[in-house]
């Protein structure tokens, strides 16, 4: 009965996406993460920062990784590049260009970093070296990997600054990071990251420190770059609005685990995990009058990554939790729901029939 009430347009859309995803999956993935697991031994116990995360990334695709602070988003990206401290215990595979990057020698990893997989950091002011001009730093990113003459280097730097939309590149390249505005700095960071035309670009909260206008401009730069260089992008953020704007697919993480993965429209219009539902319900909506009503919030706190609840990590906060059922007993695995959507909820199949969270 409930099924029948669903707007038919969504169904046709879902079919469309199914085709798109099928064609995308036919291609060899650029980057393939398999059962990635990261643990940090501490005095208080083992921190399970990332627990069994898998995803594929195709060329020209943008994957959004969303989740709140401490959900393992950034650790996942650091693990891909082997940038975690030595104390971290990393398991699983990161397959890139036919090689497993996990456990690869630092020397070999360095050849990949910045050249084939590059990273954009959140705080561009902190991530740019204060004592060098922006131009020198972009040039440095290139000369780490390539022997280029001074003239060619300068030309390339100007070209990159122009590409990311920095006006007057020649003057700007001779300036220091503190002479740039926030949005400019982030663009300079992006210029550095794309300097060697990487196949994969990992952007860790690239717009979090920026106001909305600049945010939109920076996201626009990402899209422009992708059009030009066919780069695959991993966009890590806690901002669902950002994801909605640019991502093709989304991976939702909670407490180091993946809870839902799928095509952007599926995740937004038909979330199949209670956590995703909660996140979406907590977004303010323009098409709704709130009056004195408060915005929805997911009650409780994220769990300690040392002492995770048994069963589903989300069970203490889940409005649909079945205390007598599997929720508190077994760990839910990702299950295929069709059209490339996967959810780690025992009740994913029937979640649509449950009453919406925000009422």
């Amino acid at each position, binding site marked *: 009965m409930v099924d029948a009430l669903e707007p038919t347009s969504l169904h046709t859309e879902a079919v469309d996406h199914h085709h798109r995803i099928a064609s995308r999956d036919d291609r060899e993935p650029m980057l393939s993460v398999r059962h990635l697991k990261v643990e940090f031994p501490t005095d208080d116990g083992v921190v399970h920062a990332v627990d069994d995360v898998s995803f594929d990334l195709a060329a020209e695709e943008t994957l959004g990784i969303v989740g709140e602070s401490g959900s393992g988003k950034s650790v996942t990206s650091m693990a891909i590049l082997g940038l975690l401290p030595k104390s971290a215990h990393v398991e699983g595979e990161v397959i890139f260009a036919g090689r497993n990057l996990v456990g690869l020698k630092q020397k070999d990893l360095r050849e990949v970093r910045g050249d084939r997989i590059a990273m954009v950091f959140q705080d561009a002011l902190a*991530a740019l070296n204060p*004592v060098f001009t922006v131009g020198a730093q972009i040039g*440095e990113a290139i000369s780490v990997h390539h022997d280029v003459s001074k003239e060619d280097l300068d030309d390339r730097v100007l070209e990159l600054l122009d590409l990311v*939309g920095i*006006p007057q590149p020649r003057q700007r390249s001779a300036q*220091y990071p503190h002479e740039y505005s926030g949005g400019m700095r982030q663009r300079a960071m992006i210029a*550095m990251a794309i300097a060697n035309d990487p196949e994969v670009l990992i952007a860790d909260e690239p717009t979090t420190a920026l106001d909305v206008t600049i945010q939109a401009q920076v996201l626009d730069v990402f899209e422009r770059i992708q059009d030009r260089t066919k780069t695959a992008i991993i966009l890590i953020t806690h901002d669902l609005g950002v994801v909605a704007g640019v991502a093709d697919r989304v991976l939702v993480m909670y407490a180091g685990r993946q809870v839902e993965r799928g095509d952007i429209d599926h995740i937004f219009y038909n979330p199949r995990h209670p956590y995703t539902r909660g996140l979406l319900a907590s977004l303010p909506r323009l098409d709704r009058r709130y009056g004195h009503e408060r915005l929805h919030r997911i009650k409780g706190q994220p769990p300690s990554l040392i002492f995770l609840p048994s069963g589903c990590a989300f069970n203490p906060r889940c409005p649909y939790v079945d205390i007598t059922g599997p929720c508190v007993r077994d760990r839910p695995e990702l299950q295929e729901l069709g059209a490339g959507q996967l959810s780690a909820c025992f009740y994913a199949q029937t979640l649509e029939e449950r009453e919406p969270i925000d009422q």
Partner: protein
Amino acid sequence: MTQSPRQLREEIAPAMGAMPNTALVEAELPMAPDLVPGAEPVARSNWQLFRRRFFRHKLAVISLVLLVLIIIGCFGAPLFAPYPKNHVDALLIADAHGPSLKHWFGTTDSGQDLFSQVLYSGQISLEIGLAVAFFSTIVGVFVGALAGFFGGITDQLLSRLTDLFLVIPEIAILAVALQYLGRSGTSFIIILAALGWMYIARIVRGQVLSIREKEFVEAARASGASHKRIILRHILPNCIGPIMVNATLAIAVAVIAESTLAFLGLGLQPPNTSWGILLNQAESAVTDPAKIYLVLFPALMLLITVMAVNFIGDGLRDAFDPQSTH
């Protein structure tokens, strides 16, 4: 008469100076005055900026001029000194004479022109000062950077080594080592550098410890830079201020150490001559206050050199910091 918005804008625009044309530029460019669009932008080289920042530091500029004069005077002593090295005026032998037109700084107990002697003496003092500062800085930066960057067991070993050198009683070691190496300028340089690198090592270690945690180091790592490259091109340039200040301090310390030892009779011996040896030889000033000039002029040279070097260090530190231009 009412104006159209367009007319109004055209009228206002020149009054406000050249206005940025596009909305994007307007929203995004809190620019340096010389970069306002319309004005011909000037791209200044780093060297020009560096010079500008240094020359704003008046004391440093004055000090630089003084130091250059002292260096030229001392090393060009054969050209400038009124009397040749160790020249003894037969008429004045065996007594010191006060400053006169013939002998600007007076003469020493052994009848030598003090002004000429001060210039010649400066050669060794400055040589030792500069060379010791250079070598102790190299060693100190190397040890400190490795200890700070790699941490762990490397840091433990290098830091304990640093501590070990710090607790060595300097004067005693110097006196003994000079016996073995001979009392030459070279042995002074080796020994003073070997006993002077620890201070810079400690400071650099501390700096590197804090800078290696900065995100731009992480970013450099993510861009595929090697350890060596990260240390040399990303971390050390951020430590240049403290390194410069301490290198200049090391010059001062070395010049003073040489003088102290010479004064105590442990240093270089005549016929070598240095500011310390001149002070050592100014014995008659101890009994005769009127002969204070024997102490005054060499000491003044020492003081001016040491202070000039310190001020230059300050100026360089500011000049190396791009953020000091605002």
